[in-house]
């Protein structure tokens, strides 16, 4: 076997292990110098990106990759699953691609953004640990392993939110985030303990094959409720979303972009629970999760845009915009779930369900890129002017031309204007949700228009306007920040010009993986 086949076989473990190794080597290599350490971290993330894309090229052709920690091939011993298993299907590798793009952009951005800060060794170590946690969350096939990686991600991200400890509000936001994360994770552990006590299995595939409509009872419902409530709180769905604007708004800009990825990994957890773990029982009429997801998505959207209209803090406003975009994802996937969970409606006659799920899942990567670009622009404006409130800014576009163009691209993308990628996913969501109930599509379009209004407000008050003397000699953002923003902007334009290509390559395997839970548990009978 050549080297590529060996790498492909070991890649699920290597994708998690490489940033972990980098995280622990960073303080050592940091002694050699600033540039050496940054180049080392970029090499580590480039190697991880290569492994992710190698694995993606194989998973997208239909195979599900499993990796057993402990080495041997057979892990089912007298109806008990022994070792910890990583199982990579279409949705997992989709989230891993998002994670690696966001981490690369954040590290390239931090090269210049964090140049004058102290404690950079700890910053980069925690950043790589957070990346490890996110990869572990999306690639794992074991519920308790998911809990451990969830805790790793929330601890690392909380320490990074409080990175500027001289700002009082950052520490307060980090404390709130930590309390919420811990209580959420503890309730996840409680429901994992319930499921383990009843079924004697921790592996997601094994549990999914044991939760059947015959054995569905009070304990399963209780576990579903606790898991759903805790993970949707971590994913920032209203009305438990209130930690999100504080945490995103007070963190350094390069951390906000990875926090977007961490929030979406928790959203991945919700989808994994609803579609795969309880895959055999979603047809029971008592489990009516579809409409719950749709209503919660709508409430999130409306709260996001209404609160964003009155904010005057640049990053907090974009954080409320990110909150509104989360509602779109929930709306799209919830529409698909309503049709899937109704045994009387067939999927063939209601093909809008698959279209809605495609739109919802495509929106995950679009939102990560758009909102990520907007956060990077906010960070660049803060770096140049040291002002974070929109009331004190004005006329910056004269000096920071490239940043203005990037903000324009982000503005068009977030509100769903045609040449950008936000339009493609939002059109899919509008068209399919309209066929479920017209009012949902009307509220979604209204939220999109209000997002356009909000971003135009930011553009006018920060970038346009007369020449202000205080900002006479601010300079353009440094090159590494421009390169990071350029990567995201070029991906946005590419996804917007060829949406069909992206939907067929990236999103279709993810939707196929999520609507066919039997293929996830197929390895149990195959014996791999």
């Amino acid at each position, binding site marked *: 076997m050549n080297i590529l086949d060996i790498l492909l076989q070991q890649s699920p473990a290597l994708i998690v292990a490489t940033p972990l190794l980098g995280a622990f080597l960073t303080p050592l290599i940091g002694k050699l110098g600033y540039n050496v350490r940054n180049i080392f971290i970029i090499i580590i993330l480039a190697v991880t990106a290569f492994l992710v894309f190698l694995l993606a090229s194989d998973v997208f052709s239909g195979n599900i990759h499993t990796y057993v920690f402990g080495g041997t091939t057979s892990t089912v011993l007298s109806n008990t699953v022994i070792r910890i298993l990583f199982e990579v299907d279409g949705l997992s590798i989709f989230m891993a691609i998002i994670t690696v793009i966001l981490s690369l952009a954040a590290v390239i951005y931090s090269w210049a953004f964090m140049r004058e800060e102290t404690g950079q060794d700890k910053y980069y170590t925690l950043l790589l640990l957070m990346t490890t946690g996110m990869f572990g969350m999306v690639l794992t096939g074991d519920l*308790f392993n998911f809990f*451990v990686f969830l*805790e790793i991600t929330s*601890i690392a991200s*909380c*320490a990074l939110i*409080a990175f500027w*400890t001289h*700002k*009082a*509000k950052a*520490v*307060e936001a*980090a*404390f709130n985030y*930590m*309390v919420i994360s*811990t*209580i959420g994770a*503890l309730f996840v*552990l*409680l429901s994992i*303990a319930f499921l*383990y*006590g009843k079924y004697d299995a*921790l592996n997601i595939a094994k549990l999914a094959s044991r939760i059947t409509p015959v054995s569905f009872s009070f304990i399963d419902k209780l576990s579903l409720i606790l898991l759903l409530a805790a993970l949707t709180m971590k994913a920032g769905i209203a009305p438990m979303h209130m930690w999100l604007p504080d945490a995103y708004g007070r963190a350094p800009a390069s951390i906000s972009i990875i926090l977007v990825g961490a929030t979406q990994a928790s959203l991945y957890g919700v989808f994994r629970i609803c579609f795969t773990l309880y895959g055999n029982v979603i047809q029971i009429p008592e489990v009516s999760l579809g409409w719950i997801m749709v209503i919660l998505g709508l409430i999130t959207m409306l709260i996001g845009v209404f609160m964003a209209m009155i904010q005057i803090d640049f990053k907090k406003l974009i954080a409320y915009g990110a909150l509104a975009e989360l509602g779109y994802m929930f709306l799209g996937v919830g529409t698909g779930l309503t049709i899937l969970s109704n045994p009387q409606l067939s999927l063939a006659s209601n093909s809008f369900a698959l279209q809605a799920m495609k739109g919802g899942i495509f929106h995950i990567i679009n939102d990560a890129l758009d909102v990520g670009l907007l956060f990077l622009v906010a960070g660049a404006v803060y770096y140049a002017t040291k002002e*974070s*409130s929109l009331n004190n800014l004005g006329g910056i576009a004269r000096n920071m031309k490239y940043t203005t163009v990037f903000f324009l691209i982000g503005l068009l993308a977030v509100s769903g204007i045609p040449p950008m990628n936000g339009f493609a996913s939002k059109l899919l969501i509008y068209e399919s949700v309209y066929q479920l109930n017209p009012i949902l599509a009307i509220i979604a379009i209204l939220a999109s228009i209000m997002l356009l209004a909000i971003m135009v407000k930011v553009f006018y008050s920060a970038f346009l306007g007369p020449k202000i003397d205080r900002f006479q000699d601010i300079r353009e953002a440094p090159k590494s920040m421009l390169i990071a923003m350029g990567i995201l902007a070029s991906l946005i334009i590419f996804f917007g010009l060829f949406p069909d290509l992206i939907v067929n390559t990236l999103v279709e395997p993810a939707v196929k993986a999520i609507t066919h839970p039997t293929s996830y548990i197929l390895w149990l009978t195959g014996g791999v």
Partner: protein
Amino acid sequence: MLYLRRKVNKMIANIPFLAVMAMIIIGLATVVFKRNLIKMVIGVSIIESGVNLFLITLGYREHSVAPIYTASPGGIMSYPVPQALTLTSIVIGVAVLALMLSLVIYIYRHYKTLDIRKLGGGEE
């Protein structure tokens, strides 16, 4: 008489589960209703202890000994997997507690008060 005694024996085995429920509800009530930051941290710690207790209680079998093979006195052993899960959870709880307490120290340095209603007026 014997019938009642057997019933009491069976009900005594449920006391750890009642304790778990009590601890989780008391912990949640502490986090929701107390204003002092350190009391909120203690509340989170109580919830964590309750969940760990639940994990250990799941693995107990009646009249069982510790699941260690060397120098074992014989007889059935309790399940070892929940004990491993509990150890991991306790370690995670220690890290979380340390991080939360260090954040409380920073908040005290900035605001000079531990009352959560008086926070929020700090500089940017």
